[in-house]
């Protein structure tokens, strides 16, 4: 089954990349842009039929590898089976 993991910089943590992009969008005339935060989008293809178990495993993957708990938050979504 397919899982989408989203990893974002913690709210309080500086996101220089997001700032730079916001700055450029303004320069390009997109004045309506107020804030930009940039994170990772991770698409996992896993062999697992049980959603429960899948969720538990992905949770563990995020904690151990996919997200850096010190500066990042994560959330994920299991694609409708």
């Amino acid at each position, binding site marked *: 089954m397919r899982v989408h993991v989203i990893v974002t910089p913690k709210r309080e943590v500086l996101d*220089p990349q997001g700032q*730079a992009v916001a700055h450029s969008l303004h320069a390009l005339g997109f004045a309506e842009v107020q804030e930009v935060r940039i994170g990772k989008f991770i698409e996992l293809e896993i062999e697992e039929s049980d959603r429960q178990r899948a969720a538990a495993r992905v949770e563990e993957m995020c904690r151990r590898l996919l997200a850096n708990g010190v500066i990042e938050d994560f959330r994920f979504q299991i694609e409708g089976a």
Partner: protein
Amino acid sequence: MRWGVVIFPGSNDDQDALWAIEQVLGETAVPLWHKERDLKGVDLVLLPGGFSFGDYLRCGALARFSPVMDSVIQFARAGGLVWGICNGFQVLCEAGLLPGALVRNRSRRFVCGMVNVRVETTDTPFTRLCRRGEVLEIPIKHGEGCYVADAQTLQRLEENHQVVLRYVDATGRAVEEANPNGSLRNIAGVVNHTRNVFGLMPHPEHAVEKWMGSDDGLKLFQSVLSAQRQAGSTESAAVVPGH
């Protein structure tokens, strides 16, 4: 000849390009601040290496929208010589002046060191003084130098001899072990179809003094000079829009 060197916020090798042009070649270099559209009548625009705008989002993606780039794009379309080194190459791809894109190195690590590149065509203003098949020793230093393009584009590049440089081993063979970043077909540098816009990942401006390692990069600078002399330097600057 007047060499324009664009300075973006985050350009680092701009100073090295200026050094090579002024101190080594003894030519006139004109710094071009990214916020200004005026190209000051230069005969060539060089986009230097570095981390323009921190390389945030994608390398070259933000620099591509600096005011100066509008003029550079017009200049290139009008046949003016435009030369992108490393980050400059990335900017040119983002700006659509060169085909393809440069993505993260296959190793996922920044890589700095000397490489061998083979001259694939001398039919460009940037390599006309080289020999075809000649191997040049020039350093690289980048984290996103893996050249990619779709099959048709690669096909076209090969057919029109737009691949200018390829990573090779010391004996000149374009083998996988000689490929420092995973670039498709070991491509290190390409020109556009009108052959006036050139981008490469290696840093010729860092190979201009033998006693410091290599002066093979000088050949590229000197090629441009001779091309310019032959073209009879006058026009190219004159056709620049905004003058």
